[in-house]
């Protein structure tokens, strides 16, 4: 055999597959001394199955060193028998024929370990649920069946190899992507458990969407102090590195050992800036403020609110002309217009995606949006109501408080084919955005309280104030005189921008709706402000999705492994989902999801290794011809790939390689391989064939049903 160069070391303890025969011929057994234990189960088995004769038959089976029948295998006594026999008789495989392995497989594996044997050399036979209990009136047939099932278990056990858990060395650091409430919560929870955290936030400021709010429902706390409390606690953690203005540009590796490249764009401003306000005022560039939903303006050098985190302006390089007016105005120091982005590598054992959401942007003309300054979205109205907003908290349009406001629910959500138009991305948003009903009624209540002369109409389909203390907003709104009008799934209100009515009474918008609460009456509601309760949509993180292969659902949100049971885990091991990147949710729900993701991360990484069951696919490189059919058959990104291998001196060829950490062990690759080069450890085709041989070895006794 020519000398080979060493291959890259696999970070796994799984043994390399042994050479196999081609299809058909049974392989040489590995186990030579099988111990077989047949349980009476206190009569539950032995009342129907003749356990004595079964044990006698078992002892005659090839490879069996000892066969016993025992009253209760699961008892301490029964388990001790296994341990002693392994030690004294040198058993190399163990079969227990008893109740369903769902009950005691773990018990017997542990007993086998105590005897000094590898736990994966144990195999069960189910002769209670599948024999005595299912065929109580056919004792002879049940006995024959039990014997056949044991013969099959013995045959399989003889082909089992010792296996080790798949282990990956775990880096004790998490990469959290997103600096909104979910990312902050995850970072804090992880750091407080001793985990290192790198938190990257794409924008120059932490806090995400929550800091654009004034108060939060249902507690009516002020949003920014609440979120800043969380931010302060994160900053106080020595284990957390926070990088703002930073994006992830590459991700390599797998759970336990991810390597991410992040790119930090320079802020352009440092603590040395003496007079930030003057620097900002001096900037000649004005752009719409995204923080204020486009209602206000900001400069190219800007800070969304005093006390932001960091409490420093930042420069928007796409707007900045590098004129330098800010430098002198600011005191001459602390502004650097020449900085370049820098890239760093972050090593992490796990990644938490907390990239949040965007608001739905209505189409031009949708309910009059973009055709009148009097059609706004709810996030925009939040900014107007905010004392730190563009109007100092005064709800004024064109200088006047509106006299009548109409809220329209479900804009950009619960869309129906044929009724709503798809968005610019061509998709319909069929989902409910969950938070808007409560947010709308919160705003409606605030407006009715602060502006009692302003009429408020609420046009809705269903009021979804489902959560704790949320129903109260609906009750209060009703008590405060909000008028509710209801449209159906198939109809929509319409908004006419009708300036001629402005002459009549200064209510330039007319909202029309078929109102089901008044039995289908066609209502016309003159208003001077229409507020669209826009839904949420997943933020565009296509690049990140591409890099990580994170699955995305048909609704565009990141997809969890199982919608009921595993809501914060993605199909990629080590990639967790926290917050609105996964589904619409409110602040409380997002922080709970973040804390839950933190639990998953610490459980993965807290020990030195990430451990997984060894039932993963393995390739025999001497049979593999690098055709790649297995890669095609596999549905799990990164589980199988073709790698260049030096098969002999100077000869490089492609061979399939299984990443045991990413492989789920489903076996879809196995039948795809034309040379039978791939198999699932512990569940190998030849083992199944051996069971078939065993089951069919003895002819059935005619008339056995007695």
């Amino acid at each position, binding site marked *: 055999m020519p000398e080979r160069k060493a291959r890259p070391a696999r970070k796994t303890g799984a043994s390399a597959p042994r050479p196999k025969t081609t299809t058909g011929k049974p392989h040489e057994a590995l186990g030579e001394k099988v111990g077989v234990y047949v349980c009476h189960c206190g009569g539950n088995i032995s009342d129907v199955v003749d356990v004595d004769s079964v044990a006698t038959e078992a002892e005659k089976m090839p490879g069996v060193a000892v066969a016993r029948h025992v009253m209760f295998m699961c008892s301490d006594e029964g388990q001790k028998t296994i341990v002693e026999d392994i030690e004294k008789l040198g058993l190399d495989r163990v079969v227990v024929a008893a109740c369903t392995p769902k009950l005691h497989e773990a018990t017997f594996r542990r007993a086998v370990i105590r005897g000094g044997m590898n736990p994966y050399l144990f195999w069960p036979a189910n002769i209670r649920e599948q024999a005595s209990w299912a065929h109580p009136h056919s004792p002879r047939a049940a006995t024959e069946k039990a014997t056949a099932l044991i013969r099959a278990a013995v045959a399989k056990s003889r082909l089992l190899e010792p296996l080790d858990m798949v282990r990956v060395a775990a880096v004790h650091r998490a990469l959290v992507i997103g600096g909104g409430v979910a990312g902050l919560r995850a970072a804090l929870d992880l750091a407080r458990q001793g985990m290192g955290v790198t938190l990257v936030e794409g924008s120059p400021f932490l806090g995400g969407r929550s800091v654009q709010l004034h108060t939060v429902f249902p507690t009516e706390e002020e949003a920014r102090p609440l979120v800043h409390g*969380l931010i302060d606690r994160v900053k106080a953690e020595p284990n957390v590195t926070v990088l703002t203005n930073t994006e992830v540009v590459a991700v390599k590796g797998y759970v336990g050992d991810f390597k991410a490249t992040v790119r930090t764009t320079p802020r352009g401003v440092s603590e040395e800036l003496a007079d930030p306000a003057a620097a900002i005022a001096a900037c000649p560039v004005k752009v719409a403020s995204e923080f204020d939903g486009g209602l206000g303006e900001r400069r190219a050098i800007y800070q969304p609110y005093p006390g932001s985190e960091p409490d420093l302006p930042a420069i928007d390089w796409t707007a900045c002309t590098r004129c330098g007016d800010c430098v002198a105005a600011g005191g001459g120091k602390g502004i650097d217009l020449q900085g370049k982005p820098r890239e760093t590598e972050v090593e992490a054992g796990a990644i938490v995606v907390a990239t949040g959401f965007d608001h739905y942007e209505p189409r031009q003309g949708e309910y009059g949006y973009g055709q009148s300054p009097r059609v706004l979205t709810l996030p925009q109205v939040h900014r107007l109501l905010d004392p730190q907003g563009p109007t100092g908290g005064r709800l004024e349009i064109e200088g006047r408080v509106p006299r009548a406001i109409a809220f329209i629910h479900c804009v950009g959500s619960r869309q129906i084919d044929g009724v709503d138009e798809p968005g610019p991305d061509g998709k319909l948003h069929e*989902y409910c955005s969950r938070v808007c009903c409560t947010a709308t009624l919160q705003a409606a209540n605030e407006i009715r309280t602060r502006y009692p002369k302003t009429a408020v109409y609420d046009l809705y389909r269903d009021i979804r104030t489902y959560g*704790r203390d*949320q129903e109260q907003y609906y009750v209060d709104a009703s008590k405060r005189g909000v008028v509710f009008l209801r449209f159906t*799934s198939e109809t929509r209100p319409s908004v006419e921008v009708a300036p001629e009515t402005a002459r009549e009474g200064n209510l330039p918008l007319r909202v029309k709706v078929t109102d089901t609460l008044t*039995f289908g009456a066609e209502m016309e509601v003159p208003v001077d402000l229409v507020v669209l309760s826009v839904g949420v949509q997943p933020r565009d993180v296509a690049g990140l999705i591409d890099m990580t292969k994170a699955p995305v659902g048909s609704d565009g949100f990141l997809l969890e492994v199982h*919608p009921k049971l595993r809501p914060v885990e993605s199909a990629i091991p080590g990639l967790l989902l926290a917050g609105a990147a996964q589904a619409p949710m409110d602040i409380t729900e997002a922080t*709970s999801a973040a804390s839950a993701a933190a*639990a998953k991360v610490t459980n993965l990484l807290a020990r030195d290794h990430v451990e997984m069951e060894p039932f993963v696919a393995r390739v025999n490189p001497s049979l593999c011809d690098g055709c790649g059919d297995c890669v095609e058959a596999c549905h799990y990104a990164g589980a199988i790939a073709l790698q260049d291998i030096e098969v002999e001196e100077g000869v490089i060829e492609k061979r399939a390689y299984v990443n045991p950490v990413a492989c789920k062990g489903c076996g879809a690759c196995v039948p795809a391989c034309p040379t039978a080069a791939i198999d699932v450890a512990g569940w190998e085709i030849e083992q199944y064939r051996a069971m078939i041989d065993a089951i069919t070895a003895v002819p059935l006794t005619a008339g056995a049903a007695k």
Partner: protein
Amino acid sequence: MEAVDRKLTTDILVVGAGIAGLQAALDLADRGYSVLVVDRQPSIGGKMIALSKVFPTMDCSSCITTPRMSAVAHHDSITTWTYTEVDRIEPDGDGFRAHLTRKARYVDEDLCIGCRLCEYACPVELPHEFEGNMGARRAAYVPFGTAIPQTALIDIEACVYCGKCEKACPTDAIVWDQQPLGVELRARAVVLATGYQTTALDAKKEYSGGKAANVIGGLDMERLLAPNGPYGRVLRPSDGKIPDNVAYVQCAGSRDESLGVPYCSRVCCMYAIKQAMLLSGALPLADITVYYMDIRAFGKGYEQFFQTARSMGIVFVKAKVARIDEEPNGDLRLRVEMIEEDGRVAEPVHDLVVLSVGLKPGDDPRRFVGVDLDEYGFVASPQAKLDTTLTSLPGVVAAGAAIGPKDIVDSIVEASAAATKVAMRLGPPAVSPAPPDDGLDVEVSNIDAGEAVAIAGPAEVQHA
């Protein structure tokens, strides 16, 4: 009679073994803490094990619950005590002292192999609460087919002391003089996962719940729809007729000041839609009507689920049902205002009515621990927005329906969040969890027994 027989310690005490309790226990045990899970029922699994299918995936509920139950039962770091009450939990230094009572099953859990021979021998039959009282059980019984532990118990109130169970038992597991066992326990942290109970079927007198036989509750219908339910099919209780005109009455225990439940119970729209869809599969010819106030299909995939139900021909009528009266043949006459039509008052007749009952706290934790509750009895958090699983008592966290009506997915999220809160407080576990093939076994006992243990080590939950 409160003989204190054992003095034990554990890292975390989890009160309640429904899905939230199970999830919290698994997260904490996987982390390496020792966990004791207790539940007053004779089996773990909470309400979820009794459901038919779950929304919106339509997974078989049992299929997704039993693996969690099994994982808890088999976990090296978790000990599970069913049929156990929590009497009190008091702060003690930086941890807690808890007093629990392990109720008498009259069966030795270590000897019982779950064979049910006692059940088959027992002559006493009574309505089975698990089956919504629509099926029967015996006085000596194993709680249900998928129960963990699969261990029998005797309902001593119903027992006639005939001794047939004792004769039938192959392991001599019946213990007539078994006493409740008082246990004093030290725990470093507590998770309250006491879940929910439904509002009473007869809460709203106008709905004839509890009087009309064919007015049933949401959980009752779950059992009728479950593959292993009391009848194996959907039949109406009064006469066994297969219904062909079923009505769902939403908000039959919520959003109703007159019942003292002004809040929304969050799950009833979805469970009604789910059941309606299952019914259209089970009874393809049946008409199914859902009378609702608002359809609250707010979660991931929920709205699409609702629209699918509409397209399947399930009729949704916006109407608050005013009253339900029983007809002589068992049918029900509803009284509703047809808001979406012309506003007339109609009196549709249905042959089976399901009241979508609401959710109330499963227990009053203040019975045993000093945490603040809200006005409806749900556990309150001092940081409701950013840390909903905390309670007013540091070291005690809560999750799931105990802190408010909640569906399964949100309960699971909160349970993991609660686990994180506990881990943040306790610091890393004392013993790093050993890799399983080190041969390390029950010597690393997580329950520090004072004397010889009748309760086996953590891995040995007996259920044959």
